[in-house]
């Protein structure tokens, strides 16, 4: 009868178990949790709005708006001094509560390639400066 060979890796198993036991469990980070939940709520809202967007001919609509905007811009007399209304200037500032992707999300997107990175930037740009912003209805000074 042969004696069982001792597991050469057992000391390594023990060392890993000791190290795992040393990993601390920090206190609950409420700021992190609520920031994440804000992002998740924004995602859930965006998801619920997506079916409508899918049905709408988005590209055609955007093209029409761009053409109309260009026409309005061209037909406006240049003499009148144009000032940007304060509410438009205010709308340029990012809303404080707007959930944005974390630095890591940008890193991961950059890692995946330019398309993913630009998609993420587009998404955040849409949140920070939505198409409904008064800025898009007023010509710049």
């Amino acid at each position: 009868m042969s004696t069982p060979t001792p597991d050469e890796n057992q000391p390594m198993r023990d060392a890993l178990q000791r190290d795992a036991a040393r990993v601390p469990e920090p206190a609950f980070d409420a700021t992190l949790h609520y920031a994440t939940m804000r992002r998740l709520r924004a995602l859930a809202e965006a998801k619920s709005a997506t079916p409508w967007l899918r049905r709408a001919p988005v590209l055609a609509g955007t093209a029409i708006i761009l053409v109309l905007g260009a026409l309005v811009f061209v037909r406006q007399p240049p003499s009148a001094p144009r000032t940007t209304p304060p509410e438009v200037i205010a709308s340029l500032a990012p809303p404080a509560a707007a959930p944005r992707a974390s630095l890591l999300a940008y890193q991961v997107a950059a890692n995946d390639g330019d398309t993913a990175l630009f998609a993420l930037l587009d998404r955040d740009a849409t949140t920070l400066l939505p198409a409904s912003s008064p800025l898009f209805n007023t010509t710049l000074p």
Partner: protein
Amino acid sequence: MSSTPTEPHDALLALARGGDLAAFSQLMEELQPRLLGQALAFCGDSHRAQDLVQETMIAAWKSLPRFDGSCRFFTWLYVILLRQHQRALGWFARRLPLATLEQQAAAKQFEPATAGEPQAGGAAEAELLRAMLTALPPRHREVVRLRFYADASEAEIAAALGISSGTVKSRLHHALTKLRRMKEKVNRLRGAAH
């Protein structure tokens, strides 16, 4: 798998899988400290660890309908955490060659806080062990972390990674052998230095 691991969060999980964000929030409130501790242990920097946990939670919410309960929810979350870390590490490795050094420096800062014990040797050994873990191939590192740090059984790891139990055993064996050889090499170098 023949038996499903008992899950203390069954009711919340069922609600969350049905799209209940409040239930998911409650689940994460319970699991976040453990997840954050693990993230801190393998990335060494608190801001990066927070980012990592945030991305893990978001990825978990997106893929929650695919969670089939064949492993514990924490094990499943831990796999997401590891994969997110791996992806971020890929970016750092390509674009910031000093990231590893930075990580090591951060780990040094982190060590004294983790170990309240008096022996400095324990902290040094832990640091060496974590550096050796970083040097393992990702698929080997993944099973070691799941087995020892997430306390998952081999069957659970197999279910969470979508591989066979035999593959888990084999990867674990190879990983432990590689770690042992690295340790032996370090010990030889230390012996030669004295």
